[in-house]
């Protein structure tokens, strides 16, 4: 799966996992910030994203400080998954 395909998959997973029922896949720009001005996610959403990475992709974030960079945008999240997912 290439980065763009993974981003599309993540959009669906995030909408479902974070209950973003009023947002469609098309409205999410992969380069927008996930937190703050972009999608406006909060600290509970951050925990859900950590759980999502572990549950769906088998990736455990060992260093919480890395979270800020990993969850900067959908693209950074997809790239982190591609770099760290074990086959």
């Amino acid at each position, binding site marked *: 799966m290439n980065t763009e395909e993974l981003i599309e998959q993540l959009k669906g997973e995030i909408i479902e996992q*974070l*209950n973003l029922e*009023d*947002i469609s896949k098309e409205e999410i720009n992969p380069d927008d910030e996930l937190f703050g001005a972009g999608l406006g996610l909060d600290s*509970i*959403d951050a*925990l*859900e994203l950590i*759980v999502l990475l572990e*549950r769906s992709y088998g990736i455990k974030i060992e260093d919480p400080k890395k979270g800020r960079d990993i969850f900067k945008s959908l693209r950074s999240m997809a790239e982190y998954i591609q770099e760290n997912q074990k086959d």
Partner: protein
Amino acid sequence: MNKKMINSYVGITKDAVFKDGNKVFSFNESELLNENLRALYKSEDLKYSKFYKMDHLSRLAYLSSELLFKDLELSSDTFNEMCIFLTNSTASLDTDSAHQKSISSNENYQPSPSVFVYTLTNIMMGEIAIRYKIKGENYCLIFNKFDAEFMHEYSDMLFEFYGVNHLLIGWVDVLKNDYKSFLAYVSKDMNAKWDFNSDNLIKSYKNELR
């Protein structure tokens, strides 16, 4: 003792929504709670994306507060001073059960932070407080059934001894598909419609006050 008045009240039952005793929205009785609350949210044309993240209890409380406050035009000072006093019979058991289910087996251990965070009734009151920037104290007490006498006496104490001037009082209860919400705004505004007493609390809870 100063007189207190019920300015307005809202009731949400399994089949309809009432405001000041008048039916303002009908639910499809065959639909589940979640679908009915979504239908009400859309019907009111609300734009509060946090709604979708809330559990059933908070959604019910939040929607009740939107309906209650929407025509009252209360000032930010009023909300600043408002106290929240809610009651129910099942606390946060509806969401507690969902969380318990997610951690009940080692093989399928899948706790969700967004579910766990709602395993307290405080969160229901917090959601309303955040929405309206209510900064007074808040309480949620658990009873077997709606206890108008206690609620009235306790509220009187809040007004008389703790300097409360504005009170959001009610009953918000959810367990599976069994639910009922009743919220009233009580103040010392003598122009309000109904005396605040236990008889009128019961009547408004039963949506009979007009």
